[in-house]
């Protein structure tokens, strides 16, 4: 593995995750593990129909059941809390925690039962009678955009939620009018070859291993609300809960204990969370709600669901001269916290890793009678890269070029960075050709092609796929999310005994922050990792924060920690300098000692300096006792990791089953803190990206709007046996935008793997006249193509 890292003893090492012994031995502590005295349980009555008007609700039978303390309809709950917030600048329809009047998707809450245990609550919810006047279900987004067969929100004509176009693409981002068509027209008129294809990045269910859950405890004695939540971002949850409940931020504490995965789906604060908080405040008792798996399928946000009409113009040598994407995003029935922002990221990805002079992206977000979409691992970037990388392969095929060559002639060159795309994105750094060459060498690309051709000569259906991704990471400057802010906060406190408590607003829900952050601080402070504890996931212990999403924790959270650590070190130098009778500026930290740079072992022990800082006799001039510092840090721009995934697939002629035979990946996420954790993130990402390509699709019935894939019987996530050994490697192109030169890796695998697999399948079936296949690539679809029919 090629790898260079910032100097130090632990950064760059494959340090095993400190949290794993706890998590894998069942010693973690999750929301559902918590039991509070006097706690009641919630169950939600949910809509069985996709679209309709609530005529009446009869809760009398539920209220009469044993153990039932309270039943609230949506209208009753709406009297104590306002509609839910969004964090995007786009207009949004009212979205109540529990709907008061209309239902707009299957699973939408209609009423909530409060009972002494969850089973009594669920039984009572079952007997609530709801009379709903059914309206036609709006399922097809392209029909929906004409108001067909119904309009879901009166204020949004033709179900149009958000029209959007990035600046700099010839479209006025304010009026969305096309101002300059000439460059685009010229490119397509003069093109030697044009590739056009409708593609679909289908709707997915995030499926975190731990479903959502919440406990809300309002203490009437001191007007304080504590919420235990499966959130990825406790501080955002705190801010939104306080706003909706009309409380001060100082009165609300949100705790995310161990959280079993999120993949973006736990960024949101959901109706159940607001309802739990409001009910606890109303009745003065703690309440708990834990989502069941069926609810997780229906009522946790979905991902993707974007149709792309892609047109690509190129010269006969394969140089791309223009790309046009007309995007239709099916965002479901409402806007949630980031719903409307996610598809805009698809538009921002339009250039990929290529130097494309003219681009045009036009996006329409459409309401349908489905669960709202929001961020799911990759969030907008997988869709954009899929569309572009499929089109690049179609171009290669059209010109009879090697897919590697068509990419190579279009790469943005190293001396062009920082590079501004035609769509206005600024890329921090990149060295694409070096990485491509590494991938081709590791894969043995020429041999792979020869082997494929030999296999085909035997009548086997074998294909090779390639994708080259970049992605927007390290979210980011606050301007990218003006309603929330996108900095991160950290604190580092050195205790009297020289042990360190450090906190971060980036809250781990499986990523391994407790390990990587400690590695980084151990090197910076020159002390053992075991002397450092990392605190996260509690707004009562971590003063401020943004959260873990958009591959930002190491980039933004890690840098904030380093800043706070730097401040503590400056102060320790002052105390140490007095002890050593020298100048603070000359002192460094190494191996538990603070001393002159290069001769730290002649100095004074880190723990001794810590002790002195708390009993400073005499106190150095202009210095406060103690060692506790905090820092906020915000990057000036996004980071842009990149990578190339080469895959080989074989399709069974008789069954249509696709076997993924090789997966060769080279990623560049800048400097690497912990290669083991980076590999873990890539492995998990690949699994989810392959899932989209091969087995996963959330399907709603066109007529009734029922979710047809509402359990693991009908929604297949891939298993370990579906994968070959991943052959992974790295190049290192540090980001100039943060002191560690890191870029983020949480989503890369998901983004790069999907197009590579589909490209391989299309290559495999190219002899059958196949130019494109929409995901997912289920065996029946492939079998029909082999038989010469339509997919």
């Amino acid at each position, binding site marked *: 593995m090629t790898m260079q890292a910032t100097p130090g003893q632990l950064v760059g090492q494959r340090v095993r995750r400190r949290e794993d012994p706890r998590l894998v031995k069942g010693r973690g502590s999750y929301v559902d593990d918590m039991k509070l005295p006097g706690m009641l349980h919630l169950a939600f009555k949910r809509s*069985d*129909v996709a679209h309709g008007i609530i005529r009446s609700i009869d809760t009398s039978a539920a209220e009469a059941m044993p153990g039932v303390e309270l039943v609230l309809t949506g209208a009753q709950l709406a009297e104590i809390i306002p509609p839910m917030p969004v964090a995007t600048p786009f207009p949004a329809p009212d979205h109540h925690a529990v709907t008061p009047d209309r239902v707009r998707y*299957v699973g939408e809450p209609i009423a909530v039962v409060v009972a002494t245990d969850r089973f009594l609550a669920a039984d009572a919810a*079952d*007997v609530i009678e709801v009379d709903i006047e059914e309206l036609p279900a709006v399922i097809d987004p392209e029909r929906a955009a004409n108001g067909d067969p119904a309009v879901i929100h009166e204020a949004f004509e033709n179900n149009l939620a958000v029209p959007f176009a990035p600046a700099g693409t010839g479209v006025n981002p304010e009026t969305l009018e096309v101002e300059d068509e000439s460059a685009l027209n010229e490119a397509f008129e003069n093109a030697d070859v044009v590739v056009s294809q409708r593609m679909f990045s289908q709707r997915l269910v995030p499926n975190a291993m731990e479903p959502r859950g919440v406990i809300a405890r309002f203490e009437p004695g001191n007007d304080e609300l504590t919420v235990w939540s499966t959130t990825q971002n406790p501080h955002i949850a705190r801010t939104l809960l306080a706003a909706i409940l009309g409380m001060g931020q100082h009165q609300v504490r949100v705790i995310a204990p161990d959280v079993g995965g999120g993949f973006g789906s736990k960024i949101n604060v959901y109706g159940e969370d607001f309802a739990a908080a409001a009910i606890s405040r109303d009745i003065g008792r703690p309440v708990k709600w834990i989502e069941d798996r*069926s609810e997780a*399928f*229906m009522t946790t946000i979905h991902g993707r669901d974007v149709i792309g009409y892609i047109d690509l113009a190129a010269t006969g040598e394969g140089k791309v001269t223009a790309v046009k994407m007309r995007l239709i995003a099916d965002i479901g029935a409402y806007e949630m916290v980031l719903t409307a922002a996610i598809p805009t990221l698809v538009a921002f990805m339009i250039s990929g890793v290529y130097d494309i002079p003219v681009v045009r992206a036009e996006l329409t977000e459409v309401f349908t009678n489905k669960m709202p979409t929001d961020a799911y691992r990759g969030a907008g970037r997988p869709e954009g890269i899929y569309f572009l990388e499929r089109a690049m392969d179609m171009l290669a095929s059209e010109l009879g070029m090697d897919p590697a060559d068509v990419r190579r002639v279009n790469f943005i060159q190293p001396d062009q960075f920082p590079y501004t795309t035609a769509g206005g994105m600024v890329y921090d750094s990149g060295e694409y050709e070096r990485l491509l060459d590494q991938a081709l060498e590791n894969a043995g690309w020429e041999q792979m092609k020869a082997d494929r051709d030999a296999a085909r000569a035997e009548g086997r259906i074998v294909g090779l796929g390639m994708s080259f991704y970049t992605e927007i990471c390290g979210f980011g400057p606050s301007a990218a999310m003006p309603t929330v802010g996108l900095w991160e906060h950290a604190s580092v406190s050195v205790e009297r005994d020289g042990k360190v408590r450090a906190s971060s607003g980036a809250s781990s829900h499986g990523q391994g922050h407790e390990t990587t952050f400690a590695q980084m601080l151990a090197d910076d402070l020159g002390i053992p990792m075991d002397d450092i504890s990392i605190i996260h996931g509690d707004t009562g212990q971590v003063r401020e924060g943004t959260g873990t999403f958009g591959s930002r924790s190491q980039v933004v959270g890690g840098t904030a920690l380093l800043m706070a650590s730097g401040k503590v070190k400056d102060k320790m130098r002052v105390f140490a300098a007095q002890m050593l009778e020298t100048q603070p500026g000359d002192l460094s930290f190494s191996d538990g000692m603070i001393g002159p740079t290069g001769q730290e072992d002649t100095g004074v022990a880190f723990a001794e300096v810590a002790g002195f800082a708390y009993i400073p006799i005499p106190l150095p001039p202009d210095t406060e006792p103690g060692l506790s510092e905090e820092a906020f840090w915000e990057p000036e721009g996004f980071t842009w990791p990149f990578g190339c995934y080469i895959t080989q697939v074989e399709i069974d002629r008789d069954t249509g089953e696709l076997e993924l035979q090789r997966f060769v990946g080279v990623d560049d996420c800048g400097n690497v803190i912990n290669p083991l954790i980076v590999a873990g993130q890539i492995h998990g990402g690949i699994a989810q990206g392959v899932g989209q390509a091969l087995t996963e699709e959330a399907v709603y*019935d066109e*007529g*009734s709007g*029922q*979710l*047809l894939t*509402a*359990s693991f*019987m*009908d929604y297949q996530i891939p298993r370990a046996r579906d994968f070959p050994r991943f052959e992974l490697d790295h190049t290192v192109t540090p980001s100039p935008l943060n002191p560690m030169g890191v870029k983020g890796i949480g989503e890369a695998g998901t983004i790069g793997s999907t197009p590579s697999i589909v490209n391989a399948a299309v290559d495999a079936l190219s002899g059958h006249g196949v130019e494109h296949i929409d995901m997912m690539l289920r065996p029946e679809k492939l079998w029909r193509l082999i038989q010469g029919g339509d997919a």
Partner: protein
Amino acid sequence: MRVDGEHRFDLSRSVMWEHLLNPESLQGAIPGCTAFEEVAPETWELTAQVGVGPVRGTFTGRVELRDREPESRYTLIASGQGRPGGGQGEAVINLTDDGDGTHLRYEADVTVRGAIARVGGRLLTASARTMARQFFDAIEKEAKTATERSAAR
């Protein structure tokens, strides 16, 4: 969702027609039926215990008979609701002679909602076919018993 199928009865078309529309025979033949009451001409309300895979429960429903063409064709409009969800459907039933017996063909359009919908179409179709077969077997048995009884008299 579309569910269709066929069934062969040993008894003649006129006998089967009589029993397929006879409330007493129906109550005995509908799988899990615990109550069956005529509430209007050719309209019945019923209660039945039904299970689809892991989802089980008591359903109350309404069945209406329409477009009756004696001994050859009729349409059933049905709707039902229970704790695990609900559904509605329309079934067209055609009877033709098949030697000494009767050939029945049914074509139903069914929409379901709730937990029943979520257990998956594959299970649902199989369950519906199984229930149809149970129903036809039971109604034929009823018809045979009644025929033998009247023959013995």
